[in-house]
């Protein structure tokens, strides 16, 4: 095993010491109320002892190897499980020891991420997996802490439901969510995005070709982009009816301008020498456009596509607040808020976040494929 891999980096020492000490302290305090010590709950005791032993051992220079790291991951996750299970049996009554143990579990999870980063620095092949694992672990810990804090402090459901409640609601209403997703994402967003970006692209090429249009159309495009969506959405509903076309129209208005402006600057990105080169080949306008200027514009165009992928979803959801049939993500959010069904609102938010991230990720992946040559993508 590589020598430098064994040397803990940066925060690892502090984190392991904190884990050990916090777990030790929690063993001596109350979990819930004034007369309910940690040691009276077997699983919490096991968790605390595990964390205390591992934390102290690591801080003192033992177990700084693969088996130790696996033990760290296992105990942090086991502690999280124990904490979540226990707190759901005693909601809103947690006291000092419980929070000390929560902190210990969290620092232990952080320690594991530090260890992953150390593995990465050594360049142990699995770089891709680690690159994926770190943000994933971060997300998981965010959910764990959210769950524990909300249950432990007894936060009212209307203010913030626990992830478990949102999950239950999500899995319990798949047909509704799917119908909403179809209505809002698969129809309004995708159609509006394609039409808005497509129109922006075509107009940008026209604007670039005809100087007269540059002076006339760019200011109008600018004006359209400045229109408040809240004002435009009801008008679109009046023009195009209650169903998804009016939402697609809002999305078109929102995505058109970023695409137009970015493509116009992208088309101006090729430098004089590259253009002279095409001139010496006696290349025509279209040949220069296809072989030089559009490839040069690609990074700009993808910028717009990425910005628009999130704008489109926001636009479609907000537009549904202003008149819609009884289906759609925005419609669901606005009605369920009125009925205090906040967990349903969060379920819709989760679907929107997931769909938006996937959409963005797909566009970014495509960008990586097509603009691999650009200095920002060469890596």
């Amino acid at each position, binding site marked *: 095993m590589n020598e430098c891999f064994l040397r803990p980096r940066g925060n690892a020492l502090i984190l392991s010491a904190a884990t050990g000490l916090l777990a030790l302290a929690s063993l001596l305090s109350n979990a819930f109320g004034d007369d309910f010590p940690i040691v009276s709950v077997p699983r919490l005791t096991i968790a605390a002892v595990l964390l205390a032993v591992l934390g102290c051992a690591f801080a003192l220079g033992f177990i700084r190897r693969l088996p130790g790291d696996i033990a760290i991951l296992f105990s942090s996750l086991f502690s999280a499980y124990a904490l979540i299970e226990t707190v759901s049996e005693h909601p809103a009554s947690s006291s000092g020891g419980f929070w000390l143990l929560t902190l210990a579990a969290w620092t232990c999870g952080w320690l594991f991420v530090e260890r992953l980063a150390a593995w990465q620095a050594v360049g142990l092949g699995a770089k891709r997996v680690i690159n994926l694992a770190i943000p994933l672990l971060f997300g998981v810990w965010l959910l764990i802490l959210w769950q524990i804090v909300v249950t432990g402090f007894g936060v009212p459901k209307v203010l913030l439901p626990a992830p478990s409640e949102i999950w239950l609601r999500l899995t319990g209403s798949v047909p509704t969510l799917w119908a909403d997703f179809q209505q809002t994402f698969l129809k309004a967003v995708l159609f509006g995005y394609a039409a808005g970006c497509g129109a922006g692209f075509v107009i940008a090429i026209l604007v670039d070709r005809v100087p007269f249009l540059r002076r006339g159309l760019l200011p109008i495009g600018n004006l359209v982009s400045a229109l408040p969506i809240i004002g435009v959405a009801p008008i679109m509903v009046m023009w195009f009816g209650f169903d998804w076309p009016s939402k697609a129209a809002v999305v078109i208005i929102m995505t058109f301008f970023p695409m137009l402006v970015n493509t116009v600057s992208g088309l101006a990105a090729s430098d004089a*020498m590259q253009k*002279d080169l095409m001139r010496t*080949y006696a290349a025509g306008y279209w*040949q220069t456009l296809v072989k030089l200027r559009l*490839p040069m514009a690609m990074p700009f165009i993808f910028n717009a596509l990425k910005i628009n992928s999130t704008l489109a979803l926001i636009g479609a959801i907000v537009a549904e607040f202003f008149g819609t049939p009884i289906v759609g993500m925005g419609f669901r959010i606005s009605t369920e808020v009125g009925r205090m069904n906040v967990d349903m609102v969060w379920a819709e938010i989760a679907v929107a976040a997931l769909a938006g991230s996937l959409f963005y990720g797909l566009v970014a992946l495509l960008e990586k494929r097509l603009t691999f*040559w*650009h200095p920002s993508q060469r890596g």
Partner: protein
Amino acid sequence: MSSVIDIEKLSLTFQTNDGPVHALSEIDLKIEEGDFVSFIGPSGCGKTTLLRVIADLEQPTDGTISVNGMTPNQARLARAYGYVFQAAALYPWRTIENNIALPLEIMGLSRAEQRERIKRNMELVNLSGFEKKYPWQLSGGMQQRASIARALAVEPDLLLMDEPFGALDEIVRDHLNDQLHQLWEKTNKTVVFVTHSIPEAVYLSTKIVVLCPRPGRIYDVIESDLPRSRTLDIRETPEFLKIAHRVREGLKAGHSYED
């Protein structure tokens, strides 16, 4: 035999905010087939501008110029020349072979003809084996060689080169000078070459045109009596040094005229 390039009383004046700039003034020059002509002079003497006029990248304001008996515009549209720029200007999204294919695609050559020309010209500049590499994976000298192969692939009889080796270090530059000289000897193309470097100009050229600035004009034209076939060793001979001396004197005199 008519000249490949025939320039008479050519002037070019740029209108700028600070008034007119006389980039070229009353240029008279004939370049014959198989000549290797260098334009040398200090910055701002119009040597690149003159090359760009030949390539139809700038329009003269006065005088006449013919390239292969045509106007520069007709010559450009007939793809009568290959142009090599100061930087390689390779497209980063194309592999080296596809960069060389670029002008061939624009000319509408068949796939097989393209393949054949790419192979031949990559061998000519010693780049075989780098077909599938991207430009940013090659060194500066290799990139510039690829750009020369790209210009040669058009198979022009006239090659216009604008300080092609200006950005490279001395060692690479010597090497490429040698390769360029061999290439010229082998193919018997007419080359017009812009440079800052006296040894480079004297080593490569059959004719050296010394320009001086404000207004850009020809100060001296030196016909080289060095043998056509040369190696880099020739730079140590008295004949070479004599020509180099005359070029240096010309550059000095052209400059002091102004100050």
